[in-house]
């Protein structure tokens, strides 16, 4: 490990700031991606460290490890160093989740390893993220890997992309270097059609423009990286999205007190619902009205995206797990054929000859790939013909389904436009699909 990836640590006794009377501003899930040497681990270490999220014993543990490895400074990248199995091989094999809080907002970092099985891991990490940090080494500028990361983040539907130009200390804190990279990446992002792109110059090693502004980047007038994170919208559903409620579980107490009670438990995956709303059950098409919205002991007047609630309905309509509640006429028409972008996750390739299980919201159905139109060559960023998908491939696949699914386009609603593919022979999750 070179000293370039180590940063000095503050004394462990330094207390964390009290979160007391800060404005509550929700929770943001973001993804970090970068090549092996872009300083991603150091950046995460820096974010955790400068927001006082590293506690004394954790810091002592990495201090001991740093000494044992003969390092002069504490290597904060060790904080993201995980399993014995990984240390033995000197690689990172899986997505790791990290947490920090600024008092006003809680953050969940999905840290995708940069090399091994990187497409599979990045797609997994990106699937729950609403913002991506794409690291760029200021010395190297926008490289193939940078474009790949941006493309995957975009394909997986992450609406906010921040290019974090790191190692400004190694290019003399040069405004020109940053401006050149920004122009390159902005041009590239525009061609991809990414709606919201930001740029921030930093030095993860020294901490400039990560949490603190530092003294070396005075020419940069924009927000620090943490300010960008603090200002990014945490709400995952925009107004105007349609109400989607996949039923997870039917509540039938069969008690004297609740003899005829039937509650439909699920999470509002997008849009909103209010008491009195007319709702339609898919795929049956029956309609009724919402009688109550329950959350434990509470009765709510309405519920919005990402709230887990229990609905009761005015009429006794047949509703079971796997059904989707929508506003009448606003639901996706159930279909037995879907076109999807599929990322393959398994060492055993996708074969058009085999049947798989598709899990979409709370519903499962058998499926077979009837056509593989192309796969994406992630080096050239070109579509190339394909007759199967190997691990880490992303391709356009047409699936024939045994049962109809009420599926949205992924671009319209991630939770109801996504599915996973399960291999019944192994019960493994082998593919991730986004409906086009």
């Amino acid at each position, binding site marked *: 490990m070179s000293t370039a990836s180590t940063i000095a640590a503050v004394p*462990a*006794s*330094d*207390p*964390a700031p*009290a*979160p007391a009377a800060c404005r*509550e*501003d*929700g*929770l943001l899930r973001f993804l970090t991606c970068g090549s092996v040497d872009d300083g991603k681990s150091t950046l995460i270490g820096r974010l955790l460290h400068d927001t006082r999220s590293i506690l*004394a*014993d*954790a810091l002592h*543990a990495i201090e001991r490890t740093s000494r044992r490895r003969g390092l002069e400074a504490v290597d904060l990248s060790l904080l993201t*160093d*995980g*399993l014995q*199995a990984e240390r033995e091989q000197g690689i990172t*094999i899986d*997505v*790791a*989740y990290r*947490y920090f*809080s600024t008092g006003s*907002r809680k953050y969940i970092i999905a840290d995708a390893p940069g090399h091994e099985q990187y497409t599979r891991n990045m797609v*997994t990490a990106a*699937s*729950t993220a609403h913002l991506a940090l794409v690291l760029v080494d200021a010395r190297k500028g926008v490289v193939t890997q940078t474009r790949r990361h941006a493309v995957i983040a975009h394909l997986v539907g992450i609406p906010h992309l921040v290019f974090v130009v790191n190692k400004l200390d190694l290019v003399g804190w040069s405004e020109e270097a940053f401006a050149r990279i920004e122009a390159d990446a902005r041009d590239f992002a525009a061609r991809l059609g990414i709606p*919201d792109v*930001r740029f921030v110059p930093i030095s993860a090693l020294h901490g400039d423009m990560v949490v603190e502004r530092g003294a070396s980047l005075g020419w940069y007038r*924009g927000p620090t990286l943490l300010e960008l994170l603090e200002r*990014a*919208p*945490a*709400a995952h*559903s*925009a107004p105007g999205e349609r109400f989607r409620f996949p039923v*997870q579980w039917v509540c039938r*107490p069969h008690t004297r007190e*609740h003899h005829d009670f039937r*509650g439909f*438990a*699920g*999470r509002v995956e997008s849009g909103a619902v209010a008491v009195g709303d007319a709702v339609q059950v898919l795929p049956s098409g029956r309609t009724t009205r919402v009688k109550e919205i329950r959350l434990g*002991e509470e009765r709510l007047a309405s519920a*919005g*995206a*990402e*709230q*887990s609630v229990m609905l009761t309905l005015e009429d006794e309509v047949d509703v079971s*797990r796997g059904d989707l509640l929508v506003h009448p006429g606003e639901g996706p028409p159930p279909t037995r054929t879907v076109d999807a972008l599929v990322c393959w996750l398994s060492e055993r390739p996708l074969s058009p000859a085999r049947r798989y299980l598709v899990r979409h*919201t*709370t519903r499962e159905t058998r499926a077979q790939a009837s056509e593989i139109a192309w796969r994406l060559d992630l080096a050239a960023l070109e579509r190339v013909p394909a007759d199967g998908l190997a691990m880490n491939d992303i391709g356009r696949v047409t699936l024939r389904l045994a049962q109809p699914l009420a599926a949205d386009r992924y671009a319209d609603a991630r*939770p109801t436009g*996504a*599915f*996973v593919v399960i291999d019944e022979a192994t*019960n493994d*999750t082998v593919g991730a699909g986004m409906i086009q």
Partner: protein
Amino acid sequence: MTDIHPITVRRPLAHLDWLEAEAIHVLREVAGQCANPALLFSGGKDSICLLRLAEKAFRPARFPFPLLHVDTGHNYPEVVAFRDRRAAELGERLVVRSVEDSIREGKVVLARPDEPRNRHQSVTLLDAVAEHGFDACIGGARRDEEKARAKERVFSFRDDLGQWDPKHQRPELWSLYNARIRRGEHIRAFPISNWTELDVWQYLARERLELPSIYFAHRRPVVRRGGALVPVTDLTPPRPGERVEVVSVRFRTVGDITCTAPVESTAATVEEIVAETATATVTERGATRLDDQTSDASMEQRKKEGYF
């Protein structure tokens, strides 16, 4: 500079509401996908949160699973009493299986009679899973606790020997969980994976949840050993030369008496604990688990063997 994306103006869920909604979703996925799950309830704070989340997920029905406690025989009596009372108040079935029984039956062999039994819980737990045919165990583990946990899935697959294989975990995307198993295998489901210790305390405060008394500051005889406070009990007598002090302490986790240490504290309410936790400088396991300090990899090793 203004907001990143000015179109989105809806107020986000407060972070505890978001975490609660995610946990309820996970619990309902277990209920929807698994035929015979159980919820691991120890009387500790994380599993107390799980019970409240289960109430929000499933009431007015009863829980679609029994509560299961693997009793080490090294528990504080306050915690065991609390466990029984809470289960009775909820009107839910509590199954208790005991490491003592596993020892008597020769399935657990102790190197010394007073050794910590956390590790041996795996044996008793796996026996209970086999005895009842549980296909899923819901647990209160969190990813912030320990680095082997940071990479664990929300739905974590265990093979027919109860083992966790970190290199071959099922990819977990969006909130689409895969609980499919073959006979003899099972799933561990962790609804509060994304919670931190502070989130747990904030939730306990918000929901006004009752806790075993040893979570709050009380005066207790302890000795100082290796940077930790060791409570003086029948199982953990002072060693020769150690000085017994009576100190105001509280427990941040409650587990096996022989390896769970309290911290010095005067916090008498959940709110005061929240304030202390927000400024804590030692992680929960670091402060309180004497057995995790043995090696970098001890949790990973235990988990591979079927630990919670």
